[in-house]
C-alpha cells in the first residue's frame, strides 16, 4: 500500500514539475536572472507548494505516526553548520550553471536528452563521492585525539 502512495506521489510530483515548466532549464535560468528579463512565475511553484506544506505538515506531525508506517522518518540534524552552508552554496552554483536541480533533472530523463542524462549521471557520482568523503575523511576521528 505504501508503494501505491509512493507511485501516486511520484506522479503528482513529476506532473507538477512538467506543468509548471520547472523542467525547462531556460525557464529556470530566467527565473534566477533577477537582473535580466526576470520571469518570477516559478516563484508560484514553490509558493504554492509551501501554501500546502506549511499548514499541512503541522497537522500531519501532530499525529503520533504516519498512516502506513510505524514512525516519521525525519532528518535529525537541526543546526546550521558549515556543511549545510558549503553544500547549499555548491548546489546553488550548479543550479545556476545548468538551470537544473535534482527533481527536474531526473524527471527530464524521459526526454532522453543526452545533456540531461549526463547531468543526472554526474550528479549521482558527485552525491556518492561526497558520501565517501564524509565517511572517510570528515567523520573520521582525529588520530591525535587520544592523550598519552
Amino acid at each position, binding site marked *: 500500500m*505504501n*508503494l501505491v*502512495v*509512493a*507511485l501516486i506521489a*511520484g*506522479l*503528482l*510530483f*513529476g506532473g*507538477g*514539475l*512538467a*506543468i509548471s515548466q520547472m*523542467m*525547462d532549464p*531556460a525557464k529556470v*535560468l530566467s527565473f534566477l*536572472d*533577477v*537582473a*535580466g528579463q526576470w520571469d518570477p512565475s516559478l516563484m508560484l511553484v*514553490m509558493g*504554492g*507548494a*509551501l501554501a500546502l*506544506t506549511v499548514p499541512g*505538515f503541522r497537522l*500531519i506531525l501532530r499525529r503520533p505516526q504516519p*498512516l502506513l*508506517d510505524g514512525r516519521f522518518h525525519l*532528518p535529525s*540534524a537541526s543546526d*546550521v553548520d558549515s556543511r*549545510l552552508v*558549503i*553544500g*547549499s*552554496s*555548491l548546489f*546553488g*552554483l550548479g*543550479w*545556476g*550553471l545548468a*538551470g537544473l*536541480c*535534482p*527533481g527536474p533533472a*531526473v*524527471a*527530464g530523463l524521459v*526526454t532522453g536528452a543526452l545533456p540531461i542524462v*549526463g547531468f*543526472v549521471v*554526474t*550528479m*549521482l557520482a*558527485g552525491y*556518492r563521492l561526497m558520501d565517501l568523503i564524509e565517511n572517510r575523511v570528515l567523520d573520521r576521528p582525529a588520530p591525535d585525539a587520544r592523550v598519552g
Partner: protein
Amino acid sequence: MIGLSALLMLAFNGRIAGISGIVGNLFHVRGADRLWRLVFVVGLLGGAALYGLFSEAGLNLHLETSTPLMLTAGFIVGLGTRLARGCTSGHGVCGIGRMTPRSIAATAIFMGVAGLTVFISRHLLGV
C-alpha cells in the same frame, strides 16, 4: 501538485519527498527501502511523460548550457546536495514546510548563490 505530493508522502509513509535523497540513495540502500524509492522515481518519470504526451505544449525543454558545463554542474549539484542533505524539494518545500531554521537557511543560500551565478555568467561574463 508538488505540495500535495509532499503531504501524501509524509502523511502516509512518514517520508520527506526530497528528490536528491530519494534518488541519491536509490542505488545505495537495499530491500524495501530501495523499492519505495524506485516506485517514486517511476512515478516522477511517468508524471512528466504523461504531461509530455497529452498536453498541447508538450515538455518543450530548452537547453542553453553546453554539455561539458552540464556535466560539471551535475557533479557540483551532487556534491552539494549530499553535503547539505537536501535540494529544492527536501529543504525548499519539505524543510520550510516544517519551518526548520536549517532548511530556511539552506534555501536562502542556494537560491542566492544560484541567482548570483546567473548574474555573473550572464551579465558579467556574457556567457
